[in-house]
């Protein structure tokens, strides 16, 4: 196996442009269809005035729940990239993996009725290539130390709260924005 790498997400840098969704679907399905993208930009509007977004995609967990729960053992690790992949021949579309994923990064293709998720594009992820803002970076897994991951996770959870968008949280964000200035 090559040195395993992961796509690190920094939601603070996401500009909500959704280009990654488009190229992901082009790469995997040959058509442009954000609904079938393996990366999803969860977008929410704050006070009708601006967007906050979180890129959601498979983090290639150390102990992948999706793999654990799969009754068909259809999920396996790629020997080259370390990405967890889905054997479509074996997948029966039971959605166990969908339910178990803590990030919501695995879905069922409505046409093929099989699960699909980020496969790291054989080690050359398209989404990272188009992300000029630096919200997505492709980094060595061992170089992502505890603190980086923790920071990324903190930002992610802060932002997820905002994407949920209840009024009081919106007010907090607005205050933060004002404080920042």
């Amino acid at each position, binding site marked *: 196996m090559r040195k395993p790498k992961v796509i690190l997400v920094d939601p603070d840098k996401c500009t909500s442009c959704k*280009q990654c969704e488009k190229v992901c679907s082009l790469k995997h399905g040959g058509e442009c*269809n954000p609904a079938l993208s393996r990366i999803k930009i969860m977008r929410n509007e704050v006070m009708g*005035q601006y967007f906050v977004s979180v890129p959601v995609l498979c983090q290639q967990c150390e102990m992948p729940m999706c793999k654990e729960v799969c009754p068909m053992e259809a999920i396996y690790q790629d020997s080259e990239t370390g990405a967890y992949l889905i054997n479509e021949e074996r997948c029966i579309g039971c959605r166990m993996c969908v339910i178990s994923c803590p990030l919501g990064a695995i879905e069922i293709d409505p046409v093929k009725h099989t699960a699909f998720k980020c496969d790291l594009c054989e080690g050359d992820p398209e989404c990272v290539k188009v992300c*000029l803002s630096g919200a997505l970076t492709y980094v060595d897994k061992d170089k992502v130390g505890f603190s980086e991951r923790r920071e990324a996770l903190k930002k992610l959870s802060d932002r997820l709260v905002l994407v949920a968008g209840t009024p009081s949280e919106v007010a907090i964000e607005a205050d933060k924005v004002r404080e920042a*200035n």
Partner: protein
Amino acid sequence: MAYGYAGNILRIDLTEESVSKTPTSEYARDFLGGRGINAKLMFEESKAGVSAFDPDNPVIIGAGPLVGTGIVGGVRHEITTRSPEQVPEGFGNVGSGGTFGPQMKYAGYDHMVIRGKASKPTYIYIENDDVFFKDASHLWGKGVFETNKLIREELGDPEVAILAIGQAGERLVRVATIEHEYRSGTALGAVWGAKNLKAVVVRGTKGLKVYDADKILELNKYILDRIKESLRERIEWSKKNGKPFMPYPKYCLGIDAIDEYMIMEKKAITGYFKGIEWPDIEKTRGVPFVMKRLVRQTGCCPLSCEGLMGVPGIGVAVMKCDPFWWPWQLYLTDMDKAFEATRLCSDYGIDNQDIVTPVSWLMQLYEDGIITTKDTDGVPMEWGSGEALIHVIHSVANRKGFGNALADGVLTLAKKLGPRAQELLVHRRGIVANSDEFRNQAGAALGTAVDPTCGRENWYTEEIWDTYLKETGQESEVEEAYAHARKTYGTEKAVIPWEYEKKAEGVIINEYDERIGDIFGRCCFVPAGTEAEARWSHEVGMPAKVVYPAELAIYKAVTGIDFNESQLTTFAEKTLTLEKAYNVREGFTREDEQISEYWFKNPIPDGPHKGKVIDKAKFEKMKDEYYTLRGWDTETGWPIRETYERLGLKDVADSLQKLGKLPKAKKQI
């Protein structure tokens, strides 16, 4: 349907609450898409003399073949309708980036035609194949921000794409806009108000088939590499020249370019067309404001040319080049106030330039003693007063006080204020100028005069500003531009702004560029050609020239259809001719294609271009050259039958002949 297209044109009747669909293919072969098909539909679906506020005035929304296909910059939709802002009313078009265009195509539609008038306030919700007419009574009277919020809550889906009007559009304010994700443009919003149409909302989750997905990914890499390269160049340039490098917008030549070139090239207008000499001009610069107020970069493509900004006590808003164009027009040095005004305009759904220039005019009238506080609800129109500006915005959007007259157009207010006020008003077909100087830019003056949509600004990219380039150590670009001009036009004068020679050719290239971008639906800020191809045409950071081979390669990858450059310009010419034909049908003649008399009579008062003024005789000669090159009659300015027929628009020529709107004899120089 072919690759790249969604396949359908959706027709919506608000009066009947009915919908129907027809295939796009009927139009795609002859008019390509986007603004091209929009122009065809507009000519076909509207009748002569139907006013902008008539239910029969159609609103056409189109998204070109490259929109939503995954190519970088393919995110724009175009809205076409009769413009209520122009006097007399004429062809109106406005485009914007965002998620509306792509989602419209994912829902299955390349174009929508909206007609009729709803019996009560309504918004249209399109979810893939389903179209719903939803009650908007609770949204009526609400601003754009609140409307966005309530619609998303009501539909329970934060991902819907919304086009909406604010209070201004509802109240038929002629300068009201249609807002989309904090972007707007030419004022067409009142047409929606007249239809009782508050918003159009779309959610599309189907895919778009493309011809060659791998090729699109490869072209994306090429485009993004160019963007990164230009970023590196800008970092180097700032280091070399000891200028602060603005971290935002990282990849867009935007606000710093306005600051630099408007001011350094002494090209801006301060006050009411006073020239550049104003000691406080440094205080209105955009860069320091952005450095201080930026929260985060945002946008609709990877270039992400917008910023979310926040000012304590005022609020947050997404901004692009506004408010950095215009504070010098009011001698306004409080940039926070300028931000507040821009934000207020976005919420009311109003074009802020259409407020700013009239306010500048009112301030001049106030200074000259032509008006007093009695004319302006007791608010003194003093130079530099942000309060006066904010008062006018509220007053126009709510039609309260003296703003009620301005809401009906600046000409209505001028009439009310008397002949001296009318005399001082600088406008073209009722549309006021912006802060860009014309009197040292013959090509831009011509381009603006002949534009069928009566656009305020015409980036005449063939002209270069050598003072700026030389001062910033870019002499080689000046040489390159001169060499290009000698080769293409036979004279260097073609790229020298204040010369009149060969400008018609340049205007035509510019018109093609604009339309090709709008037909395809790809943003002109996202360059696709090689650096060398586009370099000399950068007016220091203004939109790059459309590089035809690159756009054709993109079109081929998306649709599988191959055609050559001359076919591409023919599509652009066809689009322009249809836009023109609409105006011809409405009775426009050569006399309507004019710039304000002010530019002929009042030379630039100061600065390095002092004394320059547009020479009327030379200007009219440029128009003759332009009409001749276009194949239009020089006397009436109308296209001749042969021109229509060459473009395959025989039916248009026939219908105009019946109305007596074809020139009798071919008269050209």
